[in-house]
């Protein structure tokens, strides 16, 4: 850890600036010109890294954003707008943002290959438009003027490098915000991202907007570099090559972006110098990308992995199982906090939930049980806002939640966990907890939570955890947000029996410790008996029984629902 601090962000920044100064001082002009080209590609690549590298959406139109940025700079140049190139580049970047948002809109409904195809179609359409419209000043022979400060190729290299460094710093700061984590979470599961209180549309649009901004910046820097840009600078195929390089180099990291830019410019240059056709360059990138995808690790990620291995993370210690303490008798609160009335969900003619009424009192652990297919998960989805077609009303602590989207309900204090593993593997334990907490939490608080639910070291990566631990982590994250009600969908799946029992003990402490009511969906009736003050039994989408566990579970209709008619009658 010490060594990491020694090369902390500030030191890196100083180092980067020193590298730029040295390069500018010793490298001949021609190579600096190439270096500028590499930086342009790197700026664009870091934008692509947000959408493709972090958020996992394939975007094939980065060149279109660059074209817009370049177009704006050319136009401002022709108009003789005030501020000079440095301001124009910034304006070019900002001008690309609306285009990015526009393109992000389809991404709210289209995913994976559909989105890839749409972005590719967009790139082709943009190609047509820029080829037709041309760049301002190109035909009237007005090259983009550089201010005297950065007129020379050396000074311009420094300018481009500073733009890249500023972008990288901004990117790192952004990566630490909720958005940064949300993009990584989004890649793994949109539902979980929303359930953690983050608006999925906003996160996606922000990713595209940022990507477009960097694309626009790159286009602006490019137009200043070569003075006259034409449509050939921004061919569709270049967007594809950019993606291939982004995948290969791992452009979500600043180092990956710069490495990608350097590769894109200097590999063909070396081939040129050696008299080998430059088309070999593209072939090298293609093979590199295929190789990268074979291992599943980009150049940057590969290095990250190696580095992490060298750091020798302690192997996951077996989860500790405390001796069960004196049994706490679950208590039921009085004031209702979650009130569900007449909740119904129908898929076509099949009724999944019929007029379900349910009240969760404050500071209470309540069980929701029922056989498979009884509608428990549908109930959870409907209450938390995942099913827009649900009718009925949901009130949380006196506030009507009807019509609110998932993330707003989550933010209002109604959290849930998922039956399937929905913890993004790309995050650290602490990173996930901070994201899921949806509020500023101190390190002490994190440690306390880790201790409470037995999570182990906070620095570990989620990918290193077993399934059971991930489930607990999800619960911990939701609890950290101090919700009014948390709905746990089979949290003990993947835990050993003893661990389930301990989790039950812990759950009984939750209302007292966090002021949160728990609605526990569970198959393990022993766990339910231990943890819950009250149970509700659901069958065929209807509430068939409710009351204290001991008496409710003994009722014949509950047994019949669970075991089938024959057993109950026998």
């Amino acid at each position, binding site marked *: 850890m010490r060594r*990491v601090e020694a*090369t*902390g962000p500030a030191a*890196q920044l100083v*180092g980067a600036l020193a*590298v730029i100064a040295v*390069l500018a001082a010793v*490298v*001949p*002009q*021609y*190579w600096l*010109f190439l*270096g500028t*080209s590499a930086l342009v590609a790197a700026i664009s690549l870091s934008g692509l890294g947000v959408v493709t590298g972090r958020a996992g959406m394939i975007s094939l139109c980065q060149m279109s954003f660059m074209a817009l940025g370049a177009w704006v700079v050319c136009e401002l140049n022709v108009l003789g707008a005030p501020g000079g190139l440095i301001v124009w580049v910034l304006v070019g970047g900002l001008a690309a943002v609306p285009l990015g948002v526009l393109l992000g809109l389809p991404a709210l409904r289209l995913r994976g290959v559909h989105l890839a195809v749409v972005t590719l179609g967009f790139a*082709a359409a943009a*190609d*047509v438009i820029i*080829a*037709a419209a*041309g*760049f301002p000043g*190109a*035909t*009237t*022979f007005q*090259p983009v003027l550089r201010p005297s400060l950065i007129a020379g*190729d050396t000074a311009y290299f420094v300018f481009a490098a500073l733009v890249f460094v500023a972008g*990288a710093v901004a990117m790192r700061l952004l990566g630490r915000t909720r958005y940064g984590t949300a993009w990584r979470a989004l890649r793994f599961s949109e539902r979980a991202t929303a359930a953690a209180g983050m608006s999925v549309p906003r996160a996606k649009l922000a990713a595209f907007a940022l990507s477009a901004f960097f694309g626009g910046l790159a286009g602006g820097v*490019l137009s200043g*570099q*070569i*003075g*006259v*840009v*034409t*449509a*050939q*600078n921004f061919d569709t195929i270049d967007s594809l090559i950019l993606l291939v390089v982004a995948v290969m*180099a791992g452009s979500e*990291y*600043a*180092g*990956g972006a*710069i*490495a990608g830019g*350097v590769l894109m410019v*200097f590999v063909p*240059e*070396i081939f*040129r*110098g*050696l008299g080998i*056709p*430059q088309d070999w360059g593209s072939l090298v990138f293609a093979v590199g990308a295929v190789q990268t995808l074979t291992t599943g690790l980009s*150049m*940057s990620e590969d*290095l*990250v992995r190696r*580095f992490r291995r060298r750091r020798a993370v302690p192997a996951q210690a077996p989860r500790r199982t405390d001796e069960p303490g004196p049994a706490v008798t679950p208590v039921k609160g009085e004031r209702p906090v979650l009130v569900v009335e007449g909740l119904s969900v129908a898929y076509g003619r099949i009724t999944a939930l019929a007029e379900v009424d349910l009240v969760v009192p404050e500071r209470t652990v309540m069980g929701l049980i029922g056989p498979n297919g009884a509608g428990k998960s549908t109930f959870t989805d409907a209450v938390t806002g995942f099913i827009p077609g649900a009718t009925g009303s949901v009130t949380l602590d006196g506030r009507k939640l009807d019509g609110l989207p998932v993330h707003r309900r989550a933010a209002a204090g109604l959290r849930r966990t998922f039956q399937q593993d929905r913890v993004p593997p790309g995050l650290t334990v602490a990173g996930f907890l901070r994201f899921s907490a949806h509020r500023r939490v101190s390190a002490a608080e994190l440690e306390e939570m880790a201790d409470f639910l037995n999570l182990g070291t906070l620095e570990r990566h989620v990918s290193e955890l077993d399934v059971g631990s991930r489930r607990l982590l999800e619960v911990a994250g939701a609890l950290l947000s101090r919700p009014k009600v948390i709905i746990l969908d089979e949290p003990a799946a993947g835990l050993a029996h003893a661990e389930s029992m301990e989790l039950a003990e812990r759950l009984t402490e939750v209302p007292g410790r966090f002021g949160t009511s728990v609605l526990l969906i569970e198959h393990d009736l022993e766990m339910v008996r231990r943890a819950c003050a009250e149970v509700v039994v659901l069958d065929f989408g209807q509430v068939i029984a409710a009351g204290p566990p001991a008496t409710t579970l003994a009722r014949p209709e509950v047994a019949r629902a669970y075991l089938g008619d024959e057993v109950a009658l026998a």
Partner: protein
Amino acid sequence: MRKISKGLAAGAVALLAVSVTACGSGETKGSGGGATSADPIVVGAISSLSGPAAFPEASQAAKAVFDRVNAAGGINGRKISYVSVDDKGDPSTAAQVSRDLIQNKGAVALAGGASLLDCQVNGAFYSQSGISSISGTGIDPGCFTSPAISPVNTGPFLGTTVSLYHASEVLKIDKLCGFFVILGGTSEAYKGAVDQWSKITGKQLLINDRSLSGNTTDYTPYILRARDAGCKGVVFNGTEPMSVGWVKAAQAQGITGIKWLVLTSTYTDAAVKAFGDAGKDVVALSEFEPYSDASSTATKDWRELMTQSKVPLTSFAQGGYQAATNLVTVLKGIKGDITRESVTAALKALQPIESGMVGTPYTFGPEQAHASNRAAKFVQPDNGSWKVMTPDWIRLPNA
């Protein structure tokens, strides 16, 4: 991740260092500064040798001319080192290689290149660097609007104007249409070319469609539109394969009786062969004395040199030959050291050079823009080869 950025940055720097040394051009040569009479005279050329459209013959022809000069002892004992580079039809590459030529290789002048966009991208940089370019085949509009560049050829824009002028005034075709493939920002230049024709003749195009792009793959709908509008002659500015596609698509539709007026890039042996029977309605423009006319005395020397150097006989090869020959004339006339400055000064003071290859004499001079070749001849397919239609030059009147 912190480490990684470091590691990769280090790798990038290493790669940069490797490529600087690998290409061995780290040292920069000044323009003439310290150059001795033993050093070769470096002449550069930027051409589109690969990419969306490739024109290799111009620089090959120029090289043949310089090789011959070298074989005969060079310019005052100094050999010419001709460096021809590829811009791939990509502006960034064009900007990069121009710096390589001027800053690293120390070129004193550029001659004989044929590029899709060199002039447009580098025109300002040439002026700044004080270097002059005799473009072998000027294609983009920048070639005809820069103080540092004077092409030897007519170019597609003036070519369009001459083609229309020939069609309307010589062939007396009354209903003319134009379909233009727009590569780069050439739309305005073609519009200007058509306007120029209108200004000279007072006539208008029936259809003036500048909406085709390099991505337009099927021309049939446009051809049908031309037929339905009643066009009797259509100017099409596509490159050789595009024109062949166009004429073939018209043949597939069974359309006859419309003259297809194509530019120099289609005036090739491959095109006339590909046209086959469909070629009878094609009229092509020749920017120089038509190369296919083996009996012409004006092209005799060119023909021999090209055949000897195994350069394909095309209009582009004429451009490269013409540009190189003109530069050699200029270099021979320079008294004193041959440097970038002295070459440019000589070109600015150049007297018009007459030649049987072109209809109007070549000029450079101090003007802000150059388009000295304002004439053309016209050819048409005849039994699998091109036949000259106009023994005399069609010269564009000034308007």
